[in-house]
């Protein structure tokens, strides 16, 4: 529809106007979006992966209000679960991941590609509550963790849908356009994970996958008591790294990324840093996995009540001020009302004038009930009189 020249011009303008904002905005908060894309009992380990990472991220400081957890959530109360309401990620059963304070935002059949993209891009229906929205701003660092079954350029969602790599790249591009994040870390733990972020183009994105194209990602060990594998290798070694950290630590992302040993993982943990401006050695892991609030001390209060002994006077003054304002509001609305009433225009239709006057009088009557009762009484009286007269 548009001529190619105009298209070229617009392309030029687009590349021209893109402001470089990641250097000037401050890091305000951290968000985590943790997605488990599998359901059914034999995919126990995927849910255990996601819950383990949820626990880690909470322990390091990100609060529930800044975590979006999407799980099919059919493991803990599954009929095949020998330990009802308990989910473990290790065969020693030392840690119950489902124990306390797990807030799942999207569960069961709500975990769909559409909802996932709605979360990322912020396009929800107006009735969706705040806890289900990604309320990040332009200074947020977002951790996006996805686990499940995947393949070349796709990720399987709930056994019925697919998440394509170009859709993900598109979503990230729109997020960046709308400045919904300052930096984004994508961690994917599926087979052929690195293909999922091969199409990303937006700056400020760091991505790591558990295996390259053509490789599978394997589970770590089988829990013979529960009967299924309970954790994947990539997530297991990630958790091992974080168990050594605490809230005040400052290990760098580089140490995390280089801690993965291909021999133990039985796959190559591939990461791409070409879209990320900062050096990995300088970025502490708590930039994504923990949460540090920016705080500023309040130097002084604002003295609205200057004289402490005449507090009653001050309250009276303030009350009077507020009452004055109220009276002003009321009088102005009264005036508006009066001016809105139809005025009797002299010379025009006398019938309308008379009717207007009657209307005004009727509107001014307060006691409508009494008049109505009186009217009924009058009717009754008239009926009685006339029936007596016509007898």
């Amino acid at each position, binding site marked *: 529809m548009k001529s190619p020249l105009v298209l070229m011009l*617009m392309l030029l*303008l687009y590349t021209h*106007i893109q*402001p470089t904002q990641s250097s000037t*905005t*401050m890091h*305000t*908060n951290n968000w985590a979006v943790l997605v488990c894309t599998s359901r059914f009992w034999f995919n126990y380990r995927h849910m255990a992966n996601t819950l383990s990472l949820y626990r880690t991220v*909470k322990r390091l*400081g990100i*609060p*529930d*209000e800044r975590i979006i957890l999407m799980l099919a959530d059919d493991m803990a109360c599954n009929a095949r679960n020998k330990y009802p309401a308990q989910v473990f990620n290790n065969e020693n059963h030392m840690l119950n991941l489902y124990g306390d304070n797990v807030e799942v935002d999207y569960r069961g059949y709500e975990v769909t*590609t*559409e909802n996932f*993209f*709605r979360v990322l891009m*912020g*396009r*929800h*229906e*107006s009735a*969706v*509550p*705040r*806890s289900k*929205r990604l*309320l990040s*701003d*332009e200074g947020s660092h977002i951790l996006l963790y996805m686990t499940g079954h995947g393949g070349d350029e796709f990720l399987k969602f709930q056994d019925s849908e697919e998440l394509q790599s170009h*859709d993900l790249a*598109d*979503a990230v591009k*729109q997020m960046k*356009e*709308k*400045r919904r994040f300052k930096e984004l870390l994508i961690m994917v733990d599926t087979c052929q994970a690195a293909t999922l972020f091969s199409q990303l183009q937006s700056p400020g994105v760091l991505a790591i996958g558990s295996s390259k194209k053509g490789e599978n990602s394997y589970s770590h060990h089988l829990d013979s008591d529960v009967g299924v594998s309970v954790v994947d290798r990539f997530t297991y070694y990630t958790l091992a790294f974080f168990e050594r950290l605490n809230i005040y630590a400052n290990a760098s992302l580089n140490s995390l990324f280089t801690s993965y040993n291909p021999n133990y993982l039985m796959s190559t943990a591939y990461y791409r840093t070409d879209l990320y401006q900062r050096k990995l050695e300088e970025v502490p892991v708590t930039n994504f996995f923990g*949460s*540090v*609030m*920016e*705080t*500023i*001390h*309040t*130097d*002084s*209060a*604002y*003295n*609205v*009540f*200057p004289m*402490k002994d005449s*507090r009653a006077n001050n309250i009276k*003054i*303030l009350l009077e*001020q*507020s009452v004055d*304002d109220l009276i002003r509001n009321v009088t102005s609305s009264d005036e508006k009302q009066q001016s809105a009433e139809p005025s009797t225009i002299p010379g025009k239709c006398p019938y309308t004038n008379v009717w207007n006057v009657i209307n005004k009088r009727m509107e001014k009557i307060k006691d409508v009930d009494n008049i109505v009762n009186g009217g009924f009484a009058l009717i009754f009286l008239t009926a009685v009189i006339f029936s007596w007269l016509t007898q």
Partner: protein
Amino acid sequence: MAEHPEASQQEEQPGDPSPELFDPKTMRKSKPGFKRLFLTISVLLSFLSGVPFFLKSIEIYRSPIPFTEMDTLSNSIDSHPLIFSCRFHVVFVDFDSREVSVDKLAFSVLENMRKLSSSENVCGSCGNNYSVSVTIESGGDCKESGDVEAAKLWKCGRIKEGNLEEMLKDDERFDEYLNEVLGGDEEGSGKVYRVVVVSKDEEIRAVVGKNRHAWIVGRVSEVDEAVEMVAEVFVKFFVNGGTRNGSIHSEFMPVGADGRIVLSFNLLNADPRDWVYDWNFQEIDEILLAPIIRTLAPLANISTESQVLYHTPMSSFANWDKEKESYIFRTKDLPFFVNSNEWHLDTSIAAGGRSNILQFVVYVPSANECPLMLQLPNGEISMTNGFISPMWGGVVVWNPPRCARDSGGSHLRKKISPQDLEKVFEVFLGQLRQIFGLNSGSLYHDASTTFTLLSTGKGFTEWEMDFLSRQHTCYNLLQCGTTLGSLSRLVQSLPRMIIKDEIGKQVKFSLEAAKVARSNASYGISDASAVSSREARILAEDAFFHPSMMSVSYYSFEHCFAVYSPFFLPVSMHIILAVLREFRRYKQESAKHRAWRVIDSRNA
């Protein structure tokens, strides 16, 4: 189709020139008929005539969006920062008017102001083109200069009517007097910032009032000194709003994308086994918060909520300090103070999806950390015992009086006394101002002078509100421009995505509101421009975040093809083949007929 057997049943006719020249395979005697061709072509044509209707029925509805206007708006906002027109007026009282000329004074004030303000055009500032006017009142005389309109609003001589000496003793009274009596009618023509310089024999004092007046009183012998101070007042307070560099960073813009803020006040009892405190929030909401919310109405639609929580310990540590006899926590512990696991602050049901919630927390410590004091890096104890986190809210630690040692059983619900509650809310007000980017001290210390700033029950003085309105207008228009630009790029990159009417309307209204905001800004009406810029931003954000624009569900061309080809492809193949075949046959038959004609005419 069966071949017509006419060629094989050609009878011998009398007058036939040469029956042996007639070859039924390559000739025919009669012209071929049109019926078959006509039939097949008419079927094809009827299909083709239905194609436009079909295309119309599967057309993607895209509401027309003015792409060029959106792009021009975002470009012009980026390239031409918004500048407001501000007017300044200086009044010199009891000065010797013969020594200096009024015009020269105006010029030197302007020069000083230019020196103090930054060279580049900051968005939302008054620009570099200040309009300054000066009035000198001495004796019964009154000389005016500069922008005569602004000077005309000052009623000459009236300042002498009141008892100047008496009034100057009380700052509040003088401020009221200046505003009511001498302010004049300022409706509709924009606002004027005024400094009154009174020469008296006492220490120099500079006070900035609650409206748009300031005054400098004292031994101002040198006119140059007075001019410098006046320029400082104008630039530092009325133009820059009391901030250091006159612009507010984007992390101090707490208004949500739908133009609303929810203030959530929380009283946290760390350990209810020690003591339980309650507060009378209703009263303080009506008295203190309601005027502030009304004042901030042009900037944001504000609502308040409150709750009391129990069993909410903090997550950092405090150490006992023997000297100060209290538990001390330091500024480096502040980032870890808020215990998000136990403090369930995010329980607002009224807040919409794109509003911003500011949490104001009163923390009542437990018995084993009472009294809890904040120590600053320089060793002093904080006066407010509170801190903020930008875009999140603020926390104040309130210690129960004498740590409730003397009072009775811990199971009684105690109420925070009204005086203490007032003090806490004054700190909250200071924190709210800090979240908006303003300082709250009553004294402003400069290199040479100390300015006294008056505080108002409305929470924000008029000149502060002007400054905030200017900055917020700027920010809102910037956000609106980038959002509309992103929307236009998104819509153009997906030609098959459905765009509903609602989105088109929102974009149109947003562009109109942005235009109104810019025109208001050029007239200097800062609060109207703040309101319309907020409207523009809300509409642009609503249009961008409309839930129907999900690119996963747009109608790709492959999808369209895959859905409709099983219906039309087989049938159309047959029809086209039939037409082609009939056409070919017609051509063959008419070639045969022509051949016969040639032979016939040769023989005849």
